[in-house]
C-alpha cells in the first residue's frame, strides 16, 4: 500500500463506493425518507471524495465537490428543503461528480462546460454569496506584515488549566518559539502555593519570554494558534532599553521572582506537573542559570564549509606528511644521531603531522545514517513488490566514515538489501511452513573494527542453496564439473562475474547486475566483501571498508631497483622460499609448497616488465597475499624496506591507468612509488594459468584457502 499509485488506486475504488452511497442516499431522499442519517451519509460521500481528491491535486474535482458539499450542508442544517427540484439538481451534480472522477482516473481532461450549468444551479440553492464557495479556502494564507526592526519580542504567557486539559504542553510551545530565534525564558513561580494547597489540575506558573528574532507577530501568534483562549498571551515589541510602552510590565508579576532558564532541557521541568516541585525550585534555580551567550554558542556550533576547501586541505596535509617523511630521511642520511635534539624535534613534528592528518580526515567523516535512512523505504517497496513481510533492524547509524565512502556504499548496500529480501527471505507461507515467523528480518549493522568500517547485511531467510549455486556455476563454466569445493567456496561463487541463480531476472535484484558488480564497487573503494550462510538460518554479507580513501598502510618493497607498495591488508605472511618447496608446473609457472598446499608464485618485477629474467625465488623475499575472493598467491620481490603509511595519489588523474597498479605515492626521498593492485595481479595471472591448472592442483589450492 505504500506506493502513491496504489493509494491512488484505493482512492478511486473508494470513490466508486462513495458514488454508490451518494446515489443510494439521493434515491432514498427522493422517496421522501429524509432521515438525518441519510443526509449525513450523502454529505459524507461527497466530503470523502473531496478530501481524497485534494491529496492528489485534482483541483477541478475538489472545487466541484466543494460547491456540491456546501449546498448539501444547507440541507443538513435544515436551511434548505429537499424538494423534488432540489433532488434533481443533486442527482445531476452526482453524475457530474462521477464524470469528474472518471476523467481523473483515466488522466483525461473533463469538459468544464458541462459542469457549469450544474454549478450555477447549486449556487442558486445557496442563498449566501456563491463566490464564497470557491474563495474561502484562500483565506488560510494570512497576509504577512513587514519585518519589524525592534530588538526583541516580549511575550507573557499564562496557561489556563484548559490548555493542559486539551493535551497542549507549554514545553512544546517554548520549543516552537525557540525555532524562531534566541530565547530568554523566565518563569514566575510566585503563585505556586504550599504543597498541601496545590491542586494538580490547576496552573500556577507563568512565563516571561524575550524572543530575539526577525519575525512578525503573526508568526509568533501562529505558535500559540492551538492554545488561543486557553491562556493569557501578551506579545509586544521592546525597542532597546526604551520601555515607553508599559503594557508588558505586569504589576501582578514580581520580577524578582523570575529566574533565568535555558532551553530545552530545563523547560521540560516547567510543565504543569512540575509546578508541584517548585517548593524546591528556589534553591535549584540559581544553579541552572546560564547566560544567553551559551545558547548562541550552541547555535553556532557547526559551520558549513565548501567541500573543495576541505579536500584542498587534505591534499596539503598529505603533502605535509610526505615532506615530513622526506625531512626525517634526510636527517638520517646526514648521519645525525637519533638522540640528537634535531631528531627528537623531528619525532615531535611527526606526531603532530599525524594528528593534523587525523583531524583533517575527521572533518570529512560523517555518520552512515544518511545512507541507512533511505533503507526503510527501500525495504517497504521491495517487500511490497515481492509480497514478503519484512522487518528491518538497523544498528550503528552513528558510525562515522569518510564522506566519499558513504556516497559510494549507497549503491552496493541498496543492492545487497534488495538481494537479501528477494533471494534471501522466503515467502510468508514457506516461512510459516518452516516454523519461522511469517515476517522475515533483515539486519543492517555498521561498526568500526580495526581501523575499518564494517557493514553487515543479514537475513533470517533460507540461506544459500549450495547445490543450486554449484550446478549453476558448472553450467556457466565457472568451475569444472568434478571440482571439490568447500561450502565457503561455493557461497563465494555468487561473487563471480556472470553468475546469477535467479531463473527469471526480476527487476528487483536483477537490474542486469549481480553480486560481482557489488564486489567490484566495494573493491574499488579498497574494501572487501564476504558471505557467511547457514542453510535454513539465513545469510550474512559482510562489507569491510577503509575509513578513508586518502591514506593506506603499505609494505614498501624493492623489485629490480623499483620501489613498490603492497597494501598491508592483502599480506598474510612473509616467506623465505626454500629450494625443496618450489615446484615447476611448466617453464613459466612455479608453485610454492606452503601452508599445506601449493600456491602459485608471481615475479612482480617480471610481470611489470622491469626485467625479463625470472628471479631465483630462494634469493628473493616472498609475500603471501590474498585477494578479496580468498585466492592466494606468492609475490616475489628483491627486498623489503619496511612498513609505512602512504598518501594515495591517483595515477589515473596524473598519468593514466596502468593494469596491476592501483595508485601511486610520493616517498620520503621524493621519488614516486607505485601501489600494487594485488587483486588485479592475481586475477590476471590466474587467467593466464587457468587452462594449465590440473584438477588435482585446483583441489589442493582450494583446500588451502
Amino acid at each position: 500500500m505504500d506506493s502513491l499509485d496504489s493509494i491512488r488506486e484505493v482512492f478511486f475504488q473508494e470513490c466508486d463506493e462513495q458514488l454508490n452511497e451518494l446515489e443510494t442516499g439521493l434515491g432514498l431522499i427522493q422517496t421522501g425518507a429524509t432521515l438525518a442519517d441519510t443526509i449525513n451519509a450523502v454529505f459524507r460521500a461527497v466530503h470523502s471524495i473531496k478530501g481524497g481528491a485534494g491529496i492528489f491535486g485534482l483541483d477541478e474535482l475538489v472545487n466541484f465537490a466543494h460547491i456540491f458539499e456546501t449546498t448539501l450542508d444547507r440541507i443538513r442544517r435544515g436551511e434548505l428543503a429537499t424538494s423534488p427540484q432540489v433532488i434533481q439538481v443533486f442527482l445531476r451534480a452526482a453524475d457530474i461528480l462521477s464524470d469528474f472522477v472518471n476523467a481523473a482516473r483515466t488522466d483525461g481532461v473533463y469538459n468544464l462546460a458541462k459542469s457549469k450549468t450544474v454549478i450555477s444551479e447549486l449556487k442558486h440553492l445557496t442563498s449566501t454569496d456563491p463566490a464564497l464557495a470557491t474563495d474561502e479556502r484562500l483565506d488560510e494564507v494570512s497576509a504577512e506584515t513587514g519585518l519589524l526592526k525592534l530588538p526583541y519580542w516580549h511575550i507573557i504567557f499564562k496557561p489556563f488549566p484548559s490548555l493542559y486539559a486539551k493535551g497542549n504542553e507549554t514545553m512544546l510551545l517554548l520549543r516552537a518559539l525557540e525555532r524562531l530565534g534566541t530565547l530568554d525564558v523566565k518563569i514566575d513561580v510566585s503563585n505556586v502555593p504550599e504543597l498541601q494547597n496545590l491542586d494538580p489540575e490547576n496552573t500556577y506558573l507563568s512565563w516571561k519570554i524575550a524572543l530575539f528574532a526577525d519575525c512578525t507577530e503573526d508568526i509568533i501568534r501562529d505558535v500559540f494558534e492551538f492554545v488561543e483562549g486557553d491562556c493569557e498571551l501578551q506579545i509586544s515589541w521592546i525597542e532597546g532599553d526604551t520601555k515607553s510602552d508599559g503594557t508588558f510590565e505586569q504589576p501582578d508579576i514580581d520580577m524578582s521572582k523570575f529566574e533565568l532558564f535555558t532551553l530545552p532541557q530545563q523547560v521540560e521541568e516547567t510543565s504543569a506537573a512540575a509546578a508541584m516541585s517548585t517548593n524546591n525550585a528556589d534553591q535549584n534555580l540559581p544553579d541552572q542559570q546560564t547566560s544567553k551567550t551559551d545558547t548562541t554558542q550552541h547555535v553556532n556550533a557547526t559551520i558549513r564549509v565548501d567541500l573543495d576547501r576541505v579536500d584542498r586541505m587534505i591534499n596539503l596535509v598529505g603533502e605535509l606528511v610526505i615532506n615530513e617523511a622526506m625531512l626525517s630521511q634526510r636527517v638520517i642520511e646526514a648521519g645525525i644521531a637519533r638522540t640528537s635534539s634535531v631528531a627528537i624535534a623531528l619525532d615531535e613534528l611527526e606526531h603532530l603531522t599525524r594528528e593534523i592528518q587525523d583531524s583533517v580526515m575527521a572533518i570529512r567523516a560523517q555518520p552512515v545514517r544518511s545512507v541507512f535512512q533511505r533503507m526503510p523505504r527501500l525495504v517497504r517497496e521491495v517487500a511490497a513488490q515481492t509480497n514478503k513481510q519484512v522487518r528491518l533492524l538497523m544498528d550503528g547509524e552513528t558510525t562515522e566514515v569518510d564522506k566519499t565512502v558513504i556516497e559510494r556504499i549507497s549503491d552496493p548496500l541498496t543492492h545487497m538489501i534488495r538481494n537479501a529480501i528477494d533471494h534471501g527471505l522466503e515467502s510468508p507461507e514457506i516461512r510459516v511452513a518452516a516454523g519461522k515467523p511469517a515476517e522475515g528480518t533483515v539486519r543492517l549493522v555498521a561498526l568500526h573494527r580495526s581501523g575499518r568500517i564494517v557493514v553487515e547485511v543479514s537475513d533470517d531467510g533460507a540461506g544459500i542453496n549450495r547445490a543450486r549455486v554449484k550446478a549453476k556455476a558448472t553450467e556457466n563454466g565457472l568451475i569444472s564439473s568434478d571440482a571439490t569445493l568447500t561450502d565457503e567456496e561455493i557461497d563465494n561463487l555468487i561473487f563471480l562475474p556472470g553468475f546469477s541463480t535467479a531463473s527469471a531476472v526480476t527487476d528487483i535484484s536483477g537490474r542486469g547486475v549481480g553480486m560481482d558488480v557489488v564486489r567490484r564497487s566495494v573493491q574499488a573503494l579498497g574494501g572487501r566483501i564476504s558471505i557467511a550462510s547457514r542453510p535454513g538460518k539465513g545469510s550474512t554479507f559482510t562489507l569491510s571498508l577503509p575509513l578513508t580513501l586518502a591514506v593506506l598502510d603499505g609494505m614498501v618493497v624493492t623489485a629490480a631497483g623499483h620501489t613498490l607498495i603492497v597494501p598491508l591488508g592483502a599480506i598474510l605472511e612473509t616467506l623465505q622460499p626454500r629450494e625443496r618447496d618450489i615446484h615447476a608446473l611448466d617453464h613459466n609457472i612455479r608453485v610454492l609448497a606452503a601452508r599445506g598446499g601449493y600456491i602459485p608464485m608471481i615475479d612482480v618485477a617480471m610481470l611489470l616488465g622491469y626485467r625479463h629474467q625470472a628471479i631465483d625465488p630462494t634469493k628473493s623475499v616472498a609475500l603471501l597475499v590474498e585477494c578479496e575472493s580468498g585466492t592466494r598467491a606468492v609475490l616475489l620481490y628483491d627486498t623489503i624496506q619496511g612498513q609505512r603509511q602512504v598518501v594515495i595519489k591517483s595515477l589515473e588523474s596524473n598519468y593514466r591507468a596502468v593494469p596491476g597498479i592501483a595508485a601511486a605515492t610520493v616517498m620520503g626521498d621524493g621519488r614516486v612509488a607505485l601501489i600494487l593492485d594485488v587483486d588485479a595481479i592475481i586475477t590476471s595471472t590466474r587467467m593466464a594459468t587457468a587452462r594449465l591448472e590440473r584438477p588435482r592442483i585446483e583441489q589442493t589450492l582450494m583446500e588451502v584457502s
Partner: protein
Amino acid sequence: MTTTVLTVDDSRTMRDMLKYSLLEAGFRVLQAQDGLDGLEVLKTETPDVIVTDLNMPRLDGFGFIEALRRDVDRKSMPVLILTTEVDTEKKLRAKAAGATGWIVKPFDPVKLVDAIRRVAA
C-alpha cells in the same frame, strides 16, 4: 523513541494517505475507522498523538474526543482534528470538546508532520 500516531478516519484513502505520510516521517501508525473503533484501539495502545476526522459514522470526532477527555488515563493525550475547510465554528466546537489542535485538509505532508511535532511531547 518512535512517536506513535493513531489516525481515526472513515475514508480508507485518507487513512492510507495519512499512513503513507506518517511512515515517511518515521512515525509508527495505528489506524481506526471511526470514533468507536478508535476507543477500542486505545484500550490496548497508548499513542503519542491522535489525528481524527470529525465527520464519521457511529461515533464522530467530537464524541470521540469527549469520550477520551473523560478517561482519566488518556485525558491529556494530544488530539488533532482534520477539517476540510477553515470552518471556524467546527474548530471551536472541536476545541470545546477538548481537541488540542487542527490540521486543514487537504493536508500538506510537511504541515501534517509539523502539526504533530507541535503537540507530541
